[in-house]
């Protein structure tokens, strides 16, 4: 569904991605693991069109999206819940969700999307008129995911949804990610929290300093001694 082929990308002179190839199959949850600075967020930036790949291709449903502006990528159906939540603090919860639906043309169906988001995250319904900046970290993460869902994405990109959250909340959020996937949304998950991410994923890649070093079924990656050492805290 979403394919990256030999993608190179630079920040100025820094060679951040050195020929990354990966595939996200329709209906699956794919996880990208890697340490800080490995280039995980960079990959998402390239997919979303915020950073242009210097070479290589990004295709979605068999057509090239590497030259599209970020807002066009959203219209294609690839929506990101960015790292660090990045909710709009001075908009209310409901306005944040409205922004998520900005590119939607089927205005009539937007109401039912609110309902879907509120079903996943009932707390957002309770807080809908509150300024988003006053939400707790976990609630903000829920809002970031809900906001992305409002765009009715075909592929949902999640950048470290567990960052800075209490373990119990992380567990909840991963459960909901699984549910969202079960309802038919493909999920591309970027995480450092390898244990939990692998537990819900079908396939996984490991990124090290701009290169994919390991890939395979999530269940196999979990047993891979190299990965165990580096990301799962060893035994």
């Amino acid at each position, binding site marked *: 569904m979403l394919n990256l082929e030999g993608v190179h990308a630079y920040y100025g002179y820094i060679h951040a991605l050195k020929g990354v190839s990966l595939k996200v199959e329709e209906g699956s949850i794919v996880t990208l693991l890697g340490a800080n600075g490995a280039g995980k967020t960079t990959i998402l930036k390239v997919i979303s069109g915020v950073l242009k790949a210097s070479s290589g291709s990004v295709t979605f449903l068999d057509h090239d999206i590497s030259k599209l502006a970020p807002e066009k990528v959203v219209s294609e159906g690839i*929506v990101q819940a960015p790292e660090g939540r990045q909710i709009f603090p001075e908009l209310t919860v409901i306005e944040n969700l409205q922004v998520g639906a900005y590119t939607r043309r089927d205005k009539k169906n937007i109401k039912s999307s609110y309902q879907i988001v509120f079903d996943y995250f009932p707390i957002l319904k309770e807080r809908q008129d509150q300024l988003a900046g006053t*939400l707790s970290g976990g609630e903000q993460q829920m809002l970031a995911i809900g906001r992305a869902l409002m765009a009715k994405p075909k592929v949902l990109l999640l950048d470290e949804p567990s960052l*800075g959250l209490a373990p119990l909340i992380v567990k909840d959020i991963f459960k909901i990610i699984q549910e969202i996937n079960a309802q038919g949304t493909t999920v591309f998950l970027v995480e450092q929290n390898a244990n939990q991410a692998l537990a819900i994923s079908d396939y996984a890649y490991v990124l090290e300093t701009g290169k994919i070093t390991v890939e395979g079924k999530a269940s196999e990656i979990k047993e891979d001694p190299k990965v165990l050492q580096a990301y799962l805290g060893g035994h």
Partner: protein
Amino acid sequence: MVAFLQNIIAGLETGSLYALAALGLVLIFRTSGVINFAQGEMAMFSSFIALTLFQHNMPYPVAFIGAILFAVALGYIVERVFIRPASKANLVSKMIITLGLIMIFSGLATAIFGTDSYFFRKAITADNLNAGGVIIQPNALFIIAITLLIMGILFYIIKKTMVGIAIRATAQNEKTAKLMGISVSKIYSMSWIIATVLGAIAGVLIAPTTNISTAMMMDVHLKSFIAAVLGGFGSFIGPVFGGFSIGVFDNLVGYYISLKWKTVIVYGLLILILIFKPTGLFGKSYRKKV
């Protein structure tokens, strides 16, 4: 009491023009982080367009609308030609560009319209009203009313419509706004257009007081800045409040305390306010939660 009310009305009249211009500054600042130092000059240019149309025997409303249409084009062109190509430059560079625009517009205006000062009529020329001794110029009422109307519409757009939410989202977090599918460059373009129009309206309405000349907007432009700072660059309602209060205060201090010292007193007080409330009266600083 009569003198007091008289001063209040006069203050509201000029204050509403400061407020309009300040709102333009804040709109551009909030969406793109740039302070448009050339807003006064751009408004002056639009006012000259109104004057030229009027001198060519167009009726006043046509001249007014002509200036607004010109402002729409001007705002669009300035953003597209001067600001957008520099989108990767830092904010200081962009502000320097707007400083350069001051020279371009004042130079062009001198070349095209000359250095003379021209009289320009009021929007409403009906006879003054007398309300229990308080002399009210219908033109003053018109200015206050039209300002409130424009602000009402603007606030409605900003608060209630999808475009307004997109403007506020862009103002708060441009990168994420893009990720949500908002065409940020369109929002910038629009904010420049709206701001230029607000400036032009302020220019055409102040013209009967200042006359139309290349230096006509100096006072309004400066005070609109101060209004924006006083109210807080971080909010939309702040500059409006700031504009009205500077207008009213200026008049009251001038009448009751000292005409000579009014500028010193008013701005002295402003500095005092900013010492205690550095973000402006309506500026908020919210805490970030992790």
